[in-house]
């Protein structure tokens, strides 16, 4: 299956007035139809910038400085603004994190869904209204007829996120980028949204880029994983492979930091189980270490790690990591 979206060696910089600091430093990702790629990492490591560059919505003073973003054979970085507008919401659409503020408070749900089909598929009033209703049913919103005329402030967080998904899916896009879609939702609602996304993906063969900081969400939704740290992709591969045998100290550290539920018989041993830590914090923009960017926080770091940037080393089937010591993983907690 050749990929529907291929990002190769993407570089993004921000002009802080004094000089241009690199935000993304050569990130490469692949999205295949009907599959979900989990892009995971802490805040400030460039996850959202990858998404916004793909959509061509980088905030002012941020700019792409290299690499290519190929959507079904077309390089989006070279596309003219008018062409990009044709693709946005049509071939590639996006879901955002804050359902409370992502919908226009003064327009009805119907208007906000119908708008995108009117724009891209030339549908008129009645047809667009029909599609909006159909989409509300597809995202399993209770009593969809009532919701068409509703305003966002009358809906709960979960329902608003479903409307966002309805908007994103209305034109049958090839790719959906979901930027932390459930972070602001309660855990029971989060499970419902992930289940909905999985079901919709099976029906529509849409490729999903799921951006999250939560490894649990990756285990739940993703088929492939890319771990970002300080603007670089430090590890990527199939989800089972990465979660069972993480081959980069940062990924291992994240796994150790995430508290897990121990149910039933396992509950007894939960008390003694300590929580792993990654000392220090993500380096601020402009102060990325020169060689391996994780070296200052890494237990395995030696002279070479601080001097020379690590190569991309294979660590399993279709699984690679950016580290000099992928073989010494057991020594990390």
């Amino acid at each position, binding site marked *: 299956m050749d990929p529907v979206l291929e990002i190769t060696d993407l570089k993004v910089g921000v002009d802080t007035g004094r000089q241009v600091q690199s935000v993304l430093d050569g990130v490469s990702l692949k999205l295949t139809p009907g599959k979900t790629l989990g892009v995971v990492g802490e805040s400030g490591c460039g996850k959202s910038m990858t998404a916004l560059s793909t*959509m061509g*919505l980088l905030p002012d003073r941020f700019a792409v400085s290299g690499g290519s973003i190929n959507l079904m054979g077309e390089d989006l970085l070279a596309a003219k603004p*008018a062409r*990009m*507008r*044709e*693709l*946005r*919401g*049509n071939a590639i*659409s*996006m879901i*955002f994190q*804050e359902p409370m*503020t*992502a*919908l*226009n*408070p*003064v*327009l009805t749900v119907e208007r906000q869904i119908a*708008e*995108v089909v009117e*724009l*891209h598929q030339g549908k008129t009033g009645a047809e667009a209204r029909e599609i909006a209703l159909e989409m509300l049913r597809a995202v399993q919103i*209770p*009593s969809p007829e*009532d*919701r068409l*005329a*509703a*305003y966002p*402030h*009358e*809906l*709960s*967080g979960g*329902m608003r996120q479903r409307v*966002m998904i309805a*908007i994103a899916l209305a034109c049958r896009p090839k790719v959906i980028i979901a930027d932390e879609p459930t972070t602001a939702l309660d855990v029971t609602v989060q499970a419902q949204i992930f289940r909905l996304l999985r079901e919709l993906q099976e029906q529509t063969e849409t490729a999903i880029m799921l951006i999250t900081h939560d490894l649990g969400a990756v285990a739940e939704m993703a088929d492939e994983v890319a771990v970002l740290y300080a603007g670089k992709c430090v590890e990527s591969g199939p989800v089972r492979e990465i979660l069972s045998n993480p081959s980069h100290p940062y990924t291992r550290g994240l796994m150790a930091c995430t508290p897990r539920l121990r149910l039933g018989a396992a509950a007894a041993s939960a008390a003694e189980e300590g929580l792993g830590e990654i000392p220090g914090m993500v380096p601020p923009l402009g102060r990325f270490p020169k060689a391996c960017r994780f070296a200052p926080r890494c237990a395995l770091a030696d002279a070479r790690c601080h001097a020379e940037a690590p190569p991309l080393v294979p660590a399993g089937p279709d699984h690679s990591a950016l580290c000099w010591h992928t073989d010494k993983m057991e020594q990390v907690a």
Partner: protein
Amino acid sequence: MPPLVKRLASAIGLLVAVLVLNFLLIQMAPGDPVEVIVGEMGGASEELIARLRAEYGLDKPVIVQLGLYLSKVVTGDFGYSYYFNQPVLSLILQRLPATILLVVSSLMIAVVVGTLMGIYSARKPKGLLSHFVTIFSLVGYAAPVFWTGLMLLILFASVFPIFPVSGMQNVRGSETWIGAVLDVLHHLVLPSVTLASIYIATYSRLSRASMLDVLGSDYIRTARAKGLNERRVIFGHALRNGLIPVVTMVGLQFGQLFAGAVLVETVFNWPGLGRLAYESILRRDYPTILAILFFSAILVMVANILTDLAYGRIDPRIGGGRRKPSKPKGAAQ
């Protein structure tokens, strides 16, 4: 709709409070009507003064006088103006239309021109017009309104005599009804532009800041992610949200407009309540002054209620939103 009834009740309450304030101000004013009459008659006997005082109820306790005053006001009797020797109410009703015409026309100019300038400069913050708007809004705001009026008067009286600089109609008057209207409008140009000049500045700054704020919000990013071009984003999504603070400002600032009207009417001797207030102040004609205060409070009250209704139309979160009464299950948390 209970909120409207509540709004009216509080409005009436405020107006009664204005009447009580008026009554107190009359009590505090040096001298009372009887003295004014006696003064006009060049002295009167003790016995006559006592009778006059009784006739005006000045010998009764204050509360009774207040009751008397309120009852008279309710029947439309605001007292008698000695200088203009006619009942105050008819005097007010003669001059009211001129002031309403002036205030409403300048408000419209200020809001429309100001908002358009604000929106346009918000779209291109770095553009030439944006700087022009900032400079113009500072200038408009800093110049005293009567001085702007005088400067326009000099300009259009001697240099370009294309607009009348005084009064509301030509001395000759005109035969046809249309001619009369055009004549008034011709006279209206300078006064309303002068009064509008300060508020164009206020509304352009306000709408510029509000649009910049709205353009930075999440739902605008969603609109762009849908593939809408900049024009649709501005007029389809941003404008309506950006206008909300402008409508609120109209309600709050209507009172100030009257203050400006007093000055502008005096400069262009526009026969409105403002000019009447100036003349009656010079002649210490208290009943007229206080009646003007009362009527302008009524106009401001009407303006506030109208802006509240407009506010409800624009922002569904306030105006009860939906047309259909059905409340959705599991409403917003």
